[in-house]
């Protein structure tokens, strides 16, 4: 198992958000974490990526315990986090942002390789290479955030609500890119509110409600599940 989250408790100080959450992701999988607003999906990703400290339970990545490890160290282990806020370096150009993404790579040849790959995946970023990140449109910023995340060549990609605020066409582009990444071997754990799209892209999914996992299974099975259909798919 690439990522194993065992009985995770997490939250913000006195406010506990996650209760006994257990998720596993195998190498090469595309797994989704869905649920309503405020369920704790972002909290889960933030805890795994080291931006939040867990209050209980374990997180194992490739067998190593990473729970409580600081954010930049988790990144160096091979986990990249694409946050909902994107956290772009607004006064740096697209290219500089991508270069910063490769911060943990020491090999300049690999950096160049990854940069080429990102430009292939997102041609628009290449067009706007020397533009400041703060001046990009919403969709371009998402692409840049994802591009920056994959520059370090991570084995696991944590993506938080990529479709938020995007027009449907752009959402398709982003999901297409994620699928392509997964096809190349990057394991993906995706957090989303857009359930229809997600269940078509991910092979497996977990449903998180009020900080607890209530359901999980293969996407096709979930799509036909009554609870899921009623609450998330609207029929």
């Amino acid at each position, binding site marked *: 198992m690439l990522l194993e989250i065992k009985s995770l408790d997490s939250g913000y100080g006195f406010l506990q958000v996650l209760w006994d959450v257990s998720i596993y992701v195998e190498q090469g999988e595309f797994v989704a974490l869905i649920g309503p607003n405020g369920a704790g999906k972002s909290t889960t990703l933030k805890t795994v*990526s*080291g*931006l939040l400290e867990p209050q209980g339970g374990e997180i194992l990545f490739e067998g190593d315990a990473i729970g409580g490890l*600081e*954010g*930049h160290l988790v*990144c*160096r282990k091979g986990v*990249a*986090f694409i*946050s909902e*806020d*994107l*956290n*772009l*370096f*607004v*006064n*740096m150009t697209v290219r*500089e942002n991508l270069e*910063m*993404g490769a*911060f*943990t790579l020491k090999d300049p040849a690999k950096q160049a390789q990854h940069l080429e790959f990102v430009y292939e995946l997102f041609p628009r970023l290449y067009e706007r290479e020397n*533009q400041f990140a703060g*001046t*990009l*449109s*919403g*969709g371009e910023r998402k692409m840049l955030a994802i591009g*920056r*995340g994959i*520059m*370090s060549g991570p084995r696991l990609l944590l993506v938080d609500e990529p479709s938020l*605020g*995007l*027009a449907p066409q*752009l959402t398709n582009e982003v999901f297409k890119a994620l699928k392509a990444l997964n096809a190349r071997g990057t394991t993906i754990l995706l957090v989303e509110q857009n359930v229809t799209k997600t269940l078509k892209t991910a092979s497996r999914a977990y449903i998180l409600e009020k900080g607890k996992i209530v359901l999980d299974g293969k996407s096709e099975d979930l799509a036909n599940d009554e609870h899921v259909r009623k609450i998330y798919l609207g029929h």
Partner: protein
Amino acid sequence: MANPATESAVDQIDQTIGESFAQKATRWLFSAGGITVCLTILIAIVASIDKGPYVLVNTIITGGMWALMAIGLSLLFSVMNIAGFAHGEYFMAGSLTAYYAMLPIGKYTLDNPESFMAYVGPLIAILAGTLMCALLGIITERLVFKQLRMRNREGWLLNCFLITIGLSIIFQNTHQLAFGADFKGILAYWDFPSVSIFDVYISMDRVCAFFIAMLTMIGFYIFMMFSTAGKTIRAVSQDEEGARMVGISVDAVHIMTFALSCGLAGLAGASLLFMFPSYPTVGLMPLYNSWFIIILVGFGNVVGSIPGGFMIALFQVLTRTYFGEGWEAVIPVLLISLILIFKPSGIFATKVRTVWDE
């Protein structure tokens, strides 16, 4: 869902990207920043003609150093959201260290006026001042601010401000306790004949101070723009979480920032020892100046501190020349008040996220 408001804003920016250099330059010239800079240069020239070239000389010599100090203060703001009220104390520590370093060097140079030491010695003293302050900065960060960050992140800006007040008190009184309240000065760093430019005699110390300031600014620019360390500092100042996410150790950046910031202040203090002897409260005026500058150019605007430094230096020289000694406490207050009221983001319209979010 694409936001029409953002799209049009992006279009506007797209237009400015397409602008030629000439168009951009013209637009800048008519902005508040551009007008102020041009006005300053004009006034400097006029005053020099009126009152004598020392106006320009003093402005350029001290301006560079104040700029360095303001850069240090701006760094603290933009990277760590710390309002440094103790910044002047690092100036003082720099001058103090340089003084004690110069004691043996000065004696040696007196006995051997043509030796290698006569040329290099002062540089050693200045370097000592700089490094000591960088070290003090690191100690301050580890011992004080890291402790605060670990325990309490609320009201960070105000708490840090109060802490720096405490630091300022401690530094000043430690100096007094350990080294006495008297003035510790030197006659000159480089005891060589003055340089003459256009019939104006400028002491070697002043010339060297100027070059030190210029070289440091260039070095700083290269460091921030092209070195990995510099890029990590810029990254953290723009988005701390984002920096963590790409694997940057924010902790290391904090240490570097403090070392840099305090080191710059120490450099200014050490370089200007010939002008400002060291005593416990010598850091007050540099502190006020640094704050004038960052208010003038906008909190966190590191690059803007450079022209800002010269502007404030000119302002001070003019105040002293036309109004007499002692008025430089009063007149700048009017200027600062006007800026705070009408243009709080400074003449260069700086938008520093963290300060505004407070």
